[in-house]
C-alpha cells in the first residue's frame, strides 16, 4: 500500500485541473502580452483566471498579481513593503513560526539595517494580539503573520492582528498558503493589505502563486522585467499554470465543505488512535483553532528521521517537521517556539491528510507507526523496553 500523508508539503494536481491546463501548452501557446491573435487568446484565459481567483478571495482583478511561487509572493510582500516604506520607519514584525519564505526575507531585511521583531506563540502555536500591541510602534511599517501554520495547522486571529497593525499605520500581510484549501479565505473579512497563496497546496500545479495587493498599497518591485502584471512583476505569464490555479481554487471552494468533513474525520480517527495506542506521545497544536488536515506528534525517546524512513519503507509518506528543512539538522523552529523541549522536538512528525486519503489508509498508518515507534524505542538508550518506561540517562 502507498499512502501519501504529506499534503502540507504539496498536493497532487487534480486531473480536472490538468485537463484545463493542457490546451495552453501547445495549442494556445501565445504570449499573453503579445498584440496578435495568439496572444489575445491567451490574454483572455489569463484575464479569466484572474477574475475567477479574485472573486473567490473577494478582491478586484487588478489587485491580484501572479508570481512564480508562494515563496516569491512572501518575499515580494515583506521586502517590497519594508523597502518602499523605509522613510516612514525601519521596523517590521513577523511571528516566530512563519514559513521560511517570510522568516528569511525578514532576516535579509535585518542584515540590511531593518529592525525585526518576532512575535512569540503559546504552547498551541497561537500568536497573541496583546503581544503585538506591546511591540508595535509608529516606526512599524509592516506586520506579517501567516493565517495557518504549515507544521502544526494552528489558525491565527488575522482580523484582530490586522486591526492592531492598522491602528498604528502599519500594513498587514498574511501568508495564506496553507489556509487556501481549508478556509474560505476572503481579503475583506481578514482585513489584510497583502496576501500570499500557492496553487500546489490546493491541488493545483507547482510553480505558480499569487500576491493580493490592496489597491492603494505601494511596494517596491522584486522582479524587474517587462510590463507584465501591470509592470509590477516581470516575467512572461505562465498561462497554463495560472489557468490551473484558477481551476484548482474553483474546485477547492466548491468541494471545500465535503473535503473538510472527510479530512477532519480521518485526522480525528488518526489522532484518537495514536494518543490511545502509543505511549509517550505529545500532540503539537491547537484543538480548537486549526485546519482539518494536520496532525503533528512528538514521539519521545526516538528521532524523527528514523520514523520518517521506516514509514517510508512501509510505503507511507510523512514529514519530519517541515519538508523544506529536511536537509537541515536543526529541530523545528515552530515546535521550539511553542516550547516543545528540544530533545522531544527531535522526534516530531507531521501527518497531513488530503481529500483522496481513506480510513483504511489511516488504520494501516497507525499499525505501521506503532511498529516503527516500538522498533526505534527498542534501540533507544533513553527507553527501557522491559519496564516500558525511561532510563535515567
Amino acid at each position, binding site marked *: 500500500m502507498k499512502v501519501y500523508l504529506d499534503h502540507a508539503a504539496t498536493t497532487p494536481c487534480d486531473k480536472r485541473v490538468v485537463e484545463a491546463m493542457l490546451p495552453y501548452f501547445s495549442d494556445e501557446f501565445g504570449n499573453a502580452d503579445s498584440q496578435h491573435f495568439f496572444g489575445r487568446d491567451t490574454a483572455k484565459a489569463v484575464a479569466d483566471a484572474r477574475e475567477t481567483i479574485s472573486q473567490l478571495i473577494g478582491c478586484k482583478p487588478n489587485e491580484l498579481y501572479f508570481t512564480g511561487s508562494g515563496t516569491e509572493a512572501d518575499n515580494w510582500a515583506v521586502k517590497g513593503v519594508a523597502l518602499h516604506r523605509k522613510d516612514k520607519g525601519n521596523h517590521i514584525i513577523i511571528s516566530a513560526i512563519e514559513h521560511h519564505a517570510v522568516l528569511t526575507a525578514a532576516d535579509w531585511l535585518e542584515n540590511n539595517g531593518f529592525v525585526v521583531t518576532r512575535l512569540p506563540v503559546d504552547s498551541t502555536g497561537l500568536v497573541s494580539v496583546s503581544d503585538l500591541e506591546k511591540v508595535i510602534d509608529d516606526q512599524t511599517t509592516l506586520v506579517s503573520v501567516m493565517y495557518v501554520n504549515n507544521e502544526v495547522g494552528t489558525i491565527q486571529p488575522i482580523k484582530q492582528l490586522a486591526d492592531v497593525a492598522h491602528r498604528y499605520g502599519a500594513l498587514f500581510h498574511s501568508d495564506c498558503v496553507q489556509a487556501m484549501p481549508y478556509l474560505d479565505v476572503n481579503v475583506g473579512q481578514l482585513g489584510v493589505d497583502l496576501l500570499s497563496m500557492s496553487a500546489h497546496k490546493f491541488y493545483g500545479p507547482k510553480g505558480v502563486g499569487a500576491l493580493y495587493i490592496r489597491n492603494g498599497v505601494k511596494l517596491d518591485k522584486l522582479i524587474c522585467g517587462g510590463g507584465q502584471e501591470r509592470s509590477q512583476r516581470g516575467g512572461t505569464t505562465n498561462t497554463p499554470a495560472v489557468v490551473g490555479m484558477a481551476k484548482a481554487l474553483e474546485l477547492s471552494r466548491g468541494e471545500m465543505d465535503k473535503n473538510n468533513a472527510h479530512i477532519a474525520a480521518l485526522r480525528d480517527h488518526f489522532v484518537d488512535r495514536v494518543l490511545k495506542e502509543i505511549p509517550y506521545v505529545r500532540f503539537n497544536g491547537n484543538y480548537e483553532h486549526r485546519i482539518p488536515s494536520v496532525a503533528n506528534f512528538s514521539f519521545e525517546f526516538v528521532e524523527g528521521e*528514523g520514523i520518517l524512513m521506516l514509514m517510508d519503507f512501509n510505503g507511507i509518506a510523512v514529514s519530519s517537521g517541515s519538508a523544506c528543512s529536511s536537509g537541515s539538522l536543526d529541530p523545528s523552529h515552530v515546535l521550539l517556539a511553542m516550547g516543545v523541549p528540544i530533545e522531544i522536538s527531535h522526534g516530531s512528525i507531521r501527518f497531513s491528510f488530503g481529500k483522496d486519503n481513506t480510513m483504511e489508509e489511516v488504520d494501516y498508518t497507525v499499525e505501521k507507526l506503532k511498529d516503527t515507534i516500538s522498533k526505534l524505542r527498542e534501540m533507544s538508550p533513553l527507553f527501557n523496553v522491559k519496564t516500558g518506561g525511561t532510563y535515567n540517562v
Partner: protein
Amino acid sequence: MYNQKVLDAFAHPQNVGEIENPDGEGTVGNATCGDIMRITLRIENDVIVDAKFQTFGCAAAIATSSTATQMVIGMTVDEALKLTNARVVEELEGLPPQKIHCSVLAEEAIKKAIEDYRAKQQNIQLDKTKIDYV
C-alpha cells in the same frame, strides 16, 4: 540521500540491545543534539567477544552504531581503540556530508567503553593488591 548499504544497516541493525553486567560500557552524546549512543562490551582476554548498542538518533547514527559493533567484535581492545569513524563510514560506503558527524559517536562510544573496561581492570588489580596486603 543515503546509499543502499546505509539503508540496509538502518533497516536491519545488528547487535541492538545491552549486555548484562558488561565488561565495558560507554554512553556519549546528548538528547539536545539529537543523538545518544550507548555501547556495552563483553571482553575476554582483551578480545571483544560481543558488543551491543542502543542509539537515539538519526538513520546515520543507527547505521554506524550497528556497523561499528559488527566491526569491533573479534578485535583486541588495542585494535578497537584504533577504529576511526572514517573506517566505519568507509565500511558503509559513505555518508552524506552533513551526516558524517553522526559516525563520530560510534568511535567515541567504543573508546569510552574500552576506557571503562580498563578502569575496571585496574580496580580489580587494586582490589587484588589490597587483599594481598590484608
